[in-house]
């Protein structure tokens, strides 16, 4: 039966070698927070890297001794006997550069100025992340990952790994992701960013010095994002037109259940997430486009890919629709790579990739069992 990885603790890796970013800036040194589950085997061939999406972090599975209710964000997928089986694999979760969960990010202290980076933090791309993650792999002595797995923005990192380091990843599991964002997706991101950028408490990104937080903007950004991660059917099913008091109040306070839910989600998020990190993550999403270097031909962008692929999409995901996953599949077919594609019927929209679903989990489990067999 499926088990729980139990109590885990985060670790901090330090990198003293400068990192060059796509935007031209350089970080002289940086730190990455990470967690690991399972045991690295003797030839270090059973490692799996889990890349996180927009608001994710390194706490992927298990809970903390001093905070047992703080369960990792993909705990349903990772653990002994679970699809990403920690009895077989050594699983690494990390917080990406620019994040706000302990890795070097806009709220970290810039050693040059002694103040938070704020607006000075480099704009970060998926390629930059992959470079920074490769150094973590080096430090852990892992030359090649058995698999790199990610949903949404995490899937983009997994795909970029296979392009940048074709010999360092044997399998890519690209879930609810896309070869680049649609125009509509960029538009949604820009509205979210504008909510933050126009918040008077944002101070051009240097709000730390003013000892304020642009919570209003961050809250709006999250509310908008949240709507797009769900499907119309899922929201209708969950809230309908339900009213909190059962009747119209003819005012602007919370009336509909969905308003209550969104405001709660917005408040919760704004209380802990960093506004600059949110901006950086959405820009990384917008910029990702491996085919930009190959005249918008994705098949050519994938020409050097060696990894086997599992591509998974969800029927009700309109932000990263099944059609976008099919573009990935088509480019891999052109290059005659091993690829399987599952289109999971789910009503939960983009969020489906975080949900427990029988078909989704069977596909993940079966694929990873084959990966584990290859290692033996």
């Amino acid at each position: 039966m499926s088990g729980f990885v139990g109590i885990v603790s985060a670790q901090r890796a330090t990198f003293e070698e400068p990192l060059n970013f796509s935007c031209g800036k350089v970080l002289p040194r940086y730190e990455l927070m990470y967690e690991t589950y399972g045991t690295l085997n003797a030839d270090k061939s059973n490692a799996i890297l889990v890349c996180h999406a927009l608001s994710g972090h390194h706490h992927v599975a298990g809970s903390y001794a001093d905070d047992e209710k703080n369960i990792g964000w993909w705990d349903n997928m990772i653990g002994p006997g679970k699809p990403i089986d920690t009895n077989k694999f050594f699983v690494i979760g990390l917080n990406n550069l620019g994040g706000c969960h302990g890795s070097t990010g806009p709220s970290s202290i810039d050693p040059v100025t002694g103040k938070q980076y704020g607006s000075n933090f480099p704009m970060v791309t998926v390629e930059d992340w992959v470079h920074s993650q490769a150094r973590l792999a080096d430090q852990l002595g892992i030359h090649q990952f058995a698999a790199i797995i990610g949903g949404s923005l995490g899937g983009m990192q997994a795909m970029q790994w296979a392009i940048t380091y074709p010999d360092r990843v044997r399998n890519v599991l690209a879930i609810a992701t896309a070869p680049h964002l649609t125009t509509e997706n960029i538009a949604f991101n820009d509205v979210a960013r504008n909510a933050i950028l126009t918040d008077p408490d944002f101070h051009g990104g240097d709000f730390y010095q003013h000892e304020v937080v642009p919570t209003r903007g961050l809250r709006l950004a999250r509310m908008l994002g949240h709507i797009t991660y769900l499907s119309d059917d899922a929201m209708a099913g969950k809230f309908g037109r339900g009213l909190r008091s059962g009747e119209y109040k003819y005012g602007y306070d919370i009336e509909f259940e969905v308003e209550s839910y969104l405001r709660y989600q917005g408040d919760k998020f704004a209380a802990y997430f960093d506004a600059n990190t949110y901006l950086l993550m959405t820009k990384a999403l917008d910029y990702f486009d491996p085919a930009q270097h190959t005249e918008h031909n994705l098949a050519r962008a994938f020409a050097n890919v060696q990894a086997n692929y599992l591509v998974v999409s969800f029927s009700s995901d309109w932000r990263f629709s099944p059609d976008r996953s099919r573009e990935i599949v088509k480019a891999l077919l052109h290059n005659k790579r091993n690829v399987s594609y599952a289109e999971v019927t789910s009503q939960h929209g983009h969020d489906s990739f975080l949900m427990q679903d029988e078909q989704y989990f069977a596909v993940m489990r079966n694929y990873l069992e084959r990966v584990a067999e290859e290692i033996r």
Partner: protein
Amino acid sequence: MNTSIIESRPDFAAIAAWIPQGSSVLDLGCGDGSLLRYLRETRDVRGYGVEICDANIATCIGNGVNVIQNDLDSGLADFEDQSFDFVILSQTLQATRHTEALMKEIVRVGREGIISFPNFGYWKNRLQIFNGNMPISKILPYQWYDTPNVHLCTLNDFELLCDHLGVRILGRHVMNDSGDVNLLPNLRGSVAAYRFKRDV
């Protein structure tokens, strides 16, 4: 495992016999992937399956068979022209809705196509119709009201379609429960496999 597959599906043996070592194969309606797995293990075939059913997708993946979840009736848009040595459609033709369009897609994507299907002209089927009922058999196990089979045909019918589409038949293998059928195939054969290509 290999021999049991061939025993349970005699058309698989006929199909496999046409496929040289190391070919590339696209298996449409690949089910649980057993034909592709058999071809990989015996002929070092590189291939992909196309399948719609969720359970089969998970099983194929568990079998280490590349599988793309797709509805055959929506076409083969993900696959490029002449990108496979063989495109196979085994015991699925009769359940496709846009059969003519799919035939065109098969010869577009594959340098050759291989199709196996139940022969509706088999004498036992004819006998049941003669007696006043739709045929039910091991190969056609459904009642008329719950069958997925919407485009049943005889060998003659299939050959007429090939002619109509400008498709050249390169080989034919007709079978029944007792083995291969050479004499009166449209009457005595219960299953047929055809190998064909687009007439250039």
